[in-house]
């Protein structure tokens, strides 16, 4: 009995020390982590929006849903909205949630799509989601560098499509990547959900001029 108490006390003390340490580190790193994440999102935004002079996150409209959120981020120049980025998600990825950002220009046509978060199969689903340069031995030695946004055959096929053609996902025409049909369909689902949400709120954010 005495030993049981001694061992329980020892384990309790060790767990308490661990808790104190974790609480301290969590408090210490909370702010820098939030800052680093915001920086990453702002970087993604700069890639798809034309130059803007406001902070789109300050002017954002957030639409909460049961398992996530959509954000409407207007990019302004001289207080006029010149383009809009919608961030949203789908749950139909091969391994769960896929988060995307879609940029629309003033005519409501898609300028660019980027996938900000996903857990798709490396080598297959990542072909759909990642904007990563395809390296070969030749390109390694030729020293050519792509500036700006890296092209992705799948994501780029939607560029220039109009908002109204995207709301019904069964009518969207696209070429899926072979071997990654589920991921391809999931990205299309994300785009169409984003378009649907944007269409609902398009009047509330004022005309895009």
């Amino acid at each position: 009995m005495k030993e049981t108490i001694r061992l329980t006390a020892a384990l309790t003390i060790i767990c308490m020390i661990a808790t104190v340490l974790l609480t301290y580190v969590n408090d210490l790193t909370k702010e820098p982590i939030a800052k680093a994440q915001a920086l990453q999102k702002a970087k993604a935004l700069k890639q798809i929006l034309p130059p803007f002079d406001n902070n789109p996150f300050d002017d954002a409209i957030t639409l909460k849903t049961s398992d996530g959120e959509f954000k409407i981020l207007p990019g302004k120049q001289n207080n006029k909205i010149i383009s809009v980025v919608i961030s949203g998600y789908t749950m139909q990825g091969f391994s769960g949630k896929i988060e995307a950002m879609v940029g629309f220009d003033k005519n409501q046509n898609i300028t660019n799509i980027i996938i900000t978060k996903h857990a798709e199969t490396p080598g297959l689903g990542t072909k759909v989601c990642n904007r990563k340069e395809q390296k070969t031995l030749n390109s390694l030695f030729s020293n050519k560098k792509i500036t700006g946004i890296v092209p992705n055959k799948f994501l780029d096929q939607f560029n220039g499509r109009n908002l109204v053609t995207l709301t019904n996902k069964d009518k969207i025409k696209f070429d899926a990547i072979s071997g990654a049909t589920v991921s391809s369909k999931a990205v299309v689902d994300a785009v169409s959900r984003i378009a649907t949400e944007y269409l609902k709120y398009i009047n509330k954010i004022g005309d895009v001029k």
Partner: protein
Amino acid sequence: MSLTSDFTKGIWKENPVLVLLLGMCPTLGVTSNAVNGLGMGVATLFVLIGSNIVISILKNVIPKKIRIPCYIVVIATFVTIVKNLMDAYAPAAINEALGLFIPLIVVNCIVLGRAEAFAAKNSIIRSIADALGMGIGFTLTLVALGASREFLCNGSLFDIHIITAWNTPFLLMIFAPGAFIILGIFLAIMNKLERHSAIKNGRIYTAPEHLSCSACRICDMNNIE
């Protein structure tokens, strides 16, 4: 045993994946390409060094009968702290490459296995040598596994396409069955080599005595030195 053999045994003679068969989940799960194998291996290496040092320092403080739950608490705390600090202060490129694997290490049995089998019985310096050897052995094995699977799947190594005309991926290799097949081939080669060298030296090949299951004392409450 000397420091050098503490270090080198992890790379070949007691390789954590191919001889001890520890850490099978990350081995099978993340080795779909060489870059992932390298990331997981390097992340494990750092955590292993840290946890071996901490366990080695605390080995006289922790009561022997509850050592395993204590090790788990210590390792999980250590990994969580590293993850938080990395999220906050590490450069984005490093965090992107390694951050994904850090939470996977919390329950990695290589870390716990080395704490129990080595760090709890030896000095700090020897524990560091052991962690370095085991970590490097783990990394090399994961890179080799990942590189084989990646190459067989789409003819690339470290995301660089070696064979540019390889357009149809060999999907079997990138999914779980491919991991089992390649790991099986690796184990067979390892055993063949060991057996070959044993026969050459005129011995009968048996598993090293202190590694066989009959010598395992991990859960034995009565055998606490």
